[in-house]
């Protein structure tokens, strides 16, 4: 069983919202569109978005961490929004585990949104139909696109590659390895919805070199070769140290 999902690296997300705008741009004109924008240029705009980037602060000042946190549908393996739908409009696609809405069957009762603890679904104000992240179902298998573009729009837009896309049931996939190696976790595990999307935790990165201490970067661990020729012989040229020497 394939289960496509996003793995989001909170360590490198810079909170630029490029995934938000690229998602809206693709999906408003794709199969999931159009996505309503009401009063877009007035003081109280309102519109449908499948993806948001939120910002959290952890810790007590001055020892705080700012964490940018993209949130979209998590494509749960046991999605609580699917069985409650009275018409069968909400479904989990067997072939790849994506949770989708058949818009033509949706009666706009909002019950699926009530049944989602993550707030991942939005009723489109103009269409009066439930909408949600489709993992760009109209991109990922789209043979009209070059193969490298068959990924969700948000993944392609991310400038820091904070979003990985793949099959979390394939133990050798990039996403499964990232989850294993980096301690990927799920949101609100207490409700047993088994979200497919995982998050890679933020990890404090200690400087690997001794910047600011001593004469220069990395020179504590490196034997103090006086000449460039000796360093060349060893195959490790410490240009920074050389610059200091001069």
């Amino acid at each position, binding site marked *: 069983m394939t289960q496509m999902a996003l793995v989001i690296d909170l360590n490198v997300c810079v909170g630029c919202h490029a995934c938000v705008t690229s998602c809206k741009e693709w999906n408003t004109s794709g199969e999931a569109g159009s996505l309503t924008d009401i009063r877009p240029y007035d003081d109280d705009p*309102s519109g449908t978005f499948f993806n948001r980037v939120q*910002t959290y602060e952890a810790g007590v000042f001055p020892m705080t961490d700012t964490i940018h946190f993209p949130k979209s549908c998590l494509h749960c393996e046991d999605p609580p929004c699917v069985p*409650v739908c*009275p018409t069968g409009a909400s479904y989990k696609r067997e072939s790849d585990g994506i949770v989708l809405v058949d818009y033509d069957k949706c009666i706009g009762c909002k019950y699926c949104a009530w049944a989602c603890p993550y707030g991942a679904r*939005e009723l489109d104000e103009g269409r009066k139909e439930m909408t949600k992240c489709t993992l760009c179902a109209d991109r990922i298998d789209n043979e009209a696109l070059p193969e490298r573009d068959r990924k969700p729009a948000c993944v392609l837009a991310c400038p820091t590659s904070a979003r990985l896309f793949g099959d979390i049931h394939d133990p050798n996939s990039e996403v499964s390895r990232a989850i294993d190696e980096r301690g990927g976790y799920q949101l609100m595990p207490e409700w047993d919805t088994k979200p497919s999307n995982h998050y890679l935790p933020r990890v404090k990165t200690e400087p690997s070199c001794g910047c600011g201490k001593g004469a220069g970067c990395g020179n504590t661990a490196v034997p103090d070769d006086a000449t460039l020729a000796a360093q060349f012989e060893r195959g490790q040229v410490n240009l920074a140290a050389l610059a200091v020497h001069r």
Partner: protein
Amino acid sequence: MRPAFSVIFLTTLCGAAQGLLLTLVAAEAASRAFGMAVPSAFYVSGSALAVALGALGLAASFFHLGHPERAWRAIAMWRTSWLSRECIALPVFLSLAAAYGVAHWAGIGATLEIGALAAAASVALFVCTAMIYACLRFLQEWASPYTLVNFVLLGCASGCTLATACAAWLAPALVGRLAVCACLLTLAGCATRLASLARNARLQPRSTVQSATGIRNEKVEQKSRGFTASAFNTREFFHGQSGATLRVVKIGFTIGAFAVPFVLTGVGALAPRSVAAAVALAAAFVIQYVGLLAERWFFFADAQHPQNLYYQRTS
């Protein structure tokens, strides 16, 4: 949760209709057992009222839908969805309640058998309606047997009060006994509703901002929800009312749905054959119904949706 008025009217109107029909059938069974003569006009007008209230509730439910013209599709997923089951149970209940009234009006026999079927449909509808809310496990205020008990008892109490008011006009001999039942049901509904309020006040939310984001730190605070305007998530799941308003509504429905109807029904039963009694009993139902509207409003406003953890601050 933001209270949805269409759903408030649906559940209270249908609840009263179901309670009324259950009372009619119980009254018929009891009067037959004890050999009392009850004019059939009581059953005919009672079931007509039940059908009218239920139909109004059904009509109200359409206002909840974004696409009411597709509502017929809602019967499809009865295997998994309590909402779908409700969409089937409601028309079945309405048809059986209508059949019960027609059987009495036309003088066809087997009224009690039809009544038993209608009563079963009424109970089934109570279960379906309550389970729509009780089955959402992460809405902890709703995910409790109290939800089912309260939907049944409050529906039966208002229905029985209405049946007593009908009896004051059409079958005065029944008023005394029905009034006792109405008072007992109102009292029981009050007890379980207060118990559920006490339970909800003690609830500890299982989801926290830490479990919602997975950030491991004792102090995690949202600095931005990611947008400055309003959105579906900020409108649908926040009622936007102050704590003071909630307290007023809570006290209001305790008085309106329980205390006042209890007293009025009791007073009406003291002089069952007077016009004043009929007026008092009708007033008891109207006041109880308005009280139950407030109760259902509070039922929604009381529920804290875990998604709200993601929408705490604009920026």
